[in-house]
């Protein structure tokens, strides 16, 4: 689901709550004459335009909800404090998957389960389909959306490393128009991104990977189901028929404040014969390029070691394919 995107969004929301408690500002007064009194609490528009209108009027004051699998947890103990919801689930325009000659366009409300089960996405975007199939559990996958995973912007978000590896672009819409942002530029910190309060994420656009692409997804967690990743890896190589790596994209999650691509590793792999890749060297490059923290899901040392190990193992598998 989608939530207020900035790290300080919840603070803003709380600040607003404080203000309203003090009687300084009521939503209707702040937001102008267009808001009908008494209908401001649960907004469930069927059209995107209406949703964008609400978004520009309410900004952070309305909690945006899609699948609810993050937001209902975040608000578990403070649901009564929510002053307004903006529910996106009735907007069918955000639920499409479109495959054109050049691109794959996924609506922000498409669920993880829909991605995991979609035969075309499994074929064209195996990293994303695999990551979606490993989010939480079936119950979470059937509700949680790709847009929510992106907007929540957790460094451990399962779909984020694949989206970086596929060079996805995100379409951010507002009443003023649309802008497209590269996945890499979208995330700026833990649970922080560049979205503005009046914007909604509407589409994810992914260029078709070249046919000679090989890839490997890896999720490391303490158990298989219902686990927030200790780290994730999406490795994608474009290899020509002589086994030369034409391009490499190595994206990792939960090893830095944002999901990130490891440029040093990509540079090392590019233009190299796949069979001549020195696995240890590649593993060391990966280990050095990340900046993990220690938390309940693993220590910094553990994350560095495992990053090295899975990088080596994935490249070894690719060499032996």
């Amino acid at each position, binding site marked *: 689901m989608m939530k207020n995107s900035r790290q300080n969004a919840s603070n803003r929301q709380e600040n607003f709550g404080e203000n309203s408690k003090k009687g300084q500002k009521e939503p209707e007064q702040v937001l102008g004459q267009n808001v009908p009194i008494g209908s401001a609490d649960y907004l469930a528009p069927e059209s995107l335009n209406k949703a964008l209108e609400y978004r520009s009027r309410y900004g952070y004051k309305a909690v945006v909800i899609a699948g609810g699998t993050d937001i209902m*947890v975040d608000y578990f103990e403070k649901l009564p404090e929510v002053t307004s919801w903006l529910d996106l*689930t009735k907007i069918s325009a955000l639920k499409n998957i479109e495959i054109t000659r050049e691109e794959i366009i996924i609506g922000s409300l498409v669920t993880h389960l829909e991605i995991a089960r979609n035969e075309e996405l499994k074929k064209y975007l195996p990293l994303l389909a695999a990551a979606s199939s490993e989010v939480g559990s079936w119950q979470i996958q059937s509700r949680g959306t790709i847009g929510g995973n992106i907007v929540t912007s957790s460094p451990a978000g399962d779909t984020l490393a694949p989206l970086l590896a596929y060079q996805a672009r995100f379409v951010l819409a507002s009443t003023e128009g649309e802008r497209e942002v590269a996945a890499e530029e979208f995330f700026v910190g833990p649970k922080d991104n560049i979205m503005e309060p009046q914007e909604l994420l509407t589409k994810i656009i992914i260029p078709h990977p070249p046919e000679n692409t090989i890839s490997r997804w890896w999720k490391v967690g303490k158990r298989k189901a219902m686990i927030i990743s200790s780290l994730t890896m999406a490795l994608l190589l474009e290899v020509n028929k002589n086994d030369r790596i034409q391009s490499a994209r190595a994206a990792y999650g939960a090893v830095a404040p944002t999901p990130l691509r490891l440029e040093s590793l990509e540079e090392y792999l590019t233009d190299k014969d796949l069979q001549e890749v020195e696995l240890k060297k590649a593993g060391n490059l990966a280990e050095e390029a990340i900046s993990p923290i220690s938390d309940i899901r693993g220590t910094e040392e553990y994350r560095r070691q495992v990053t090295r190990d899975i990088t080596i193992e994935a490249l070894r598998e690719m060499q032996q394919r």
Partner: protein
Amino acid sequence: MSEIKVEFTLNDNKESVVVPAEERLLDTLRERFDLTGTKEGCGVGECGACTVILDGEAVNSCLVPTAQVDGRQVRTVEGLAEGDELDPLQQSFIDHQAVQCGFCTPGMLMSARALLDKNTSPTEEEIKTALDGNLCRCTGYKQIVDAVEAAAKKEERE
């Protein structure tokens, strides 16, 4: 918050309720419809005790605002049996002693039902995946997986 009128189908009956916008489907089912088969375990989508079927898919009812089920179909554990006749899954759970304290059972049954409604002959691995989001702390999973497997075979024969 204002109250929202929600019309939905609950275990094949058309229902209409007026709820606060922040009310969870779990609470609506238990408190307004007395359908207390749906349990609250963790309240944050980890344990699966509150699993119900929403438009054919298993969901955690603790993470669904009731307002979002407007116009949709909800099925709870109470909707499995037809009169006195148990759902094959329920009978199979009894036959395989897949119930000990019983708290996780409604959630297990609903996740398994969602699976069998889509896949009439699941492999053991597929059953385990479908039950990934359901925790049991006393029965043990073996009997549960066996029960689902047997129910699937029985349903396929019929």
